[in-house]
């Protein structure tokens, strides 16, 4: 077997397929996962997991100086019948079941939140309406924790909206019972001053399916860490993401799919457009196929469309395979510039430049948006993309 290798990455795109005897995804983190912030040294920026992130813009979330202000965020949960919504204390047994913090800010959030919100969908309940969670930043510093748990064969759509201004570190646990189906849409539509860091852990039950749609438009710095693991065979995870990184924004999405169980599937597709000076998008796609995970079928893809000079993309797909007995494993990453020839073609048909750009960018996102499968979310995303494009010209 070849030696494990983690791709050293340049400033644009890179990828690697490594064959490893043991998980190097875990070992290359600077400390093992822990719920206790004290187990993580304060990052200095050269660590593998922090090297793309401008620490000075975390506003103290990473070094313990960001103190919760009490007026950080306002959270409202609206849920249809069949759903229980509770606010619980730190010691509630349902907290932290889906995963353990893997970096200092996630551990800081875990160590600092006062109350968690737990949304439970009863066994076999099939919701006719989405659960809507709005997180509105009121200008302060906040730490939070959210649990969403689906009983066996329950089906739910959860839409989480982030708006306003805040410095927020918050984790989310998704726990899917056997045969459950959960679709989560998390929209980061923050003001341009907000900082939002979080780890999203999904634990997918037997034959359950988890679909995550992460949409990031706003914020000064957004760094999300969607992670999936499987509690039993037959699980399926689809991770979709869409970001529009403007001038000066740092938007980072770090995925990890841990194929720790046989016969599970995963499919990750993230697409981003960037425009303006200092726009920086980071995409890390770690997929680990453990030795036990025979019959795994996985694919991950990241595409970026750079609309103007001065924007930067770091895209790092990384696939580590510990067993050859799999159905399929693949990855792709590409970063392209806005194509002047396409623009010329459209303009030569009378279409004004601004509208032509809009057509091309909408086209870039269209296929991904269609896969979301929620018409109102799709319409809203297309609207939002239009707004972003209008702001650019």
């Amino acid at each position, binding site marked *: 077997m070849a030696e494990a290798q983690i791709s050293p990455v340049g400033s644009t795109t890179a990828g690697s397929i490594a064959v490893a005897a043991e998980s190097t995804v875990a070992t290359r983190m600077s400390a093992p996962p822990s719920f206790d912030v004290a187990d993580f040294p304060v990052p200095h920026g050269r660590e593998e997991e922090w090297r793309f992130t401008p620490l000075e813009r975390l506003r103290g979330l990473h070094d313990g100086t960001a103190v919760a202000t009490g007026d950080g965020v306002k959270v409202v949960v609206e849920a249809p019948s069949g759903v229980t919504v509770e606010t619980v204390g730190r010691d509630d047994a349902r907290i932290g079941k889906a995963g353990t913090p893997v970096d200092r800010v996630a551990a800081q959030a875990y160590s600092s939140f006062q109350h968690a919100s737990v949304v439970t969908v009863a066994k076999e309940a099939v919701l006719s309406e989405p659960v809507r969670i709005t997180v509105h930043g009121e200008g302060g510093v906040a730490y939070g924790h959210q649990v969403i748990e689906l009983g066996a064969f329950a089906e739910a759509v959860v839409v989480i909206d982030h708006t306003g201004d805040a410095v927020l570190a918050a984790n989310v646990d998704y726990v899917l019972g056997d045969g459950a189906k959960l679709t989560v849409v998390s929209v980061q539509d923050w003001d341009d001053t907000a900082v939002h860091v979080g780890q999203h852990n999904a634990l997918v039950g037997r034959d359950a399916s988890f679909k995550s749609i992460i949409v990031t438009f706003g914020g000064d710095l957004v760094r999300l860490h969607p992670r999936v693991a499987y509690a039993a065979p037959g699980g399926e995870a689809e991770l979709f993401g869409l970001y529009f990184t403007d001038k000066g924004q740092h938007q980072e999405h770090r995925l990890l799919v841990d194929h720790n169980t046989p016969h599970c599937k995963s499919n990750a597709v993230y697409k981003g457009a960037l425009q303006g000076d200092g726009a920086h998008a980071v995409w890390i796609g770690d997929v680990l196929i453990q030795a036990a995970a025979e019959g795994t079928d996985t694919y991950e893809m990241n595409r970026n469309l750079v609309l103007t000079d001065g924007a930067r993309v770091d895209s790092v797909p990384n696939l580590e395979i510990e067993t050859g007995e799999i159905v399929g494993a693949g990855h792709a990453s590409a970063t392209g510039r806005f*194509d*002047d*020839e*396409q623009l*010329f*073609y*459209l*303009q*030569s*048909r*009378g*279409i*004004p*430049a601004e*509208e*032509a750009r809009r*057509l*091309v960018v*909408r*086209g*870039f*996102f*269209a*296929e991904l948006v269609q896969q979301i499968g929620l018409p109102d979310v799709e319409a809203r995303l297309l609207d939002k993309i239009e707004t972003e494009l209008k702001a650019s010209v």
Partner: protein
Amino acid sequence: MATLEIRDLHVSVEADNATKEILKGVDLTVKQGETHAIMGPNGSGKSTLAYSLAGHPKYTITSGTVTLDGEDVLEMSVDERARAGLFLAMQYPVEIPGVSVSNFLRTSATAVRGEAPKLRTWVKEVKETMAQLQMDPAFAERNVNEGFSGGEKKRHEILQLELLKPKIAILDETDSGLDVDALKTVSEGVNRVRETGEVGTLLITHYTRILKYIKPDYVHVFANGRIAASGGAELADQLENEGYEAYTKGGASA
């Protein structure tokens, strides 16, 4: 009557940090209802002329004028030229992922006509034109030029020509890459537009075979960045027999 006038047009490109002159004084007048064939060897500058008229940013006009009905074309943006009535069927149309043909056609028709065409008549118009060009209706839902064969791309260009009804149509090697049947179908499309008498056609080609289907009023030999000779249809026959040699000698290194 619409008239395109090209006077002493000089065009250059930036290549390898050097400026290279490609068009070296082109003079040509195309009037509505006329068909001009421009024939010339590879690399003589035919596409450069077509792109320069359409306003491709890669090409720099160093001197000369282009007017359409007296309006300065060179002052217009690419889309303004199209709305003023210029159309370029491209030699190598580009793919536009995620943009469907039907969306593209409607967007451009809306831009060129100045208002959105009425949906019902529009759908019918597109369907019928596609049928005449023997394009499967399924093309409407495909992405622009994505995965199209060479022949399909050319049919799609002519479909746009028929729908956009320009005053001046520049067809850059619309015949290349077409088999005989496709050549006939595409030529019929061009002829439908010509028969309206409303379009002036600049038919750029390397070979004479398309001229069997589209009869030019004038034939111009293009060599070394300018028009080297002009005549009637008989000039095409002469080129067919004798080739371009007489026009390229000595000019190639200039």
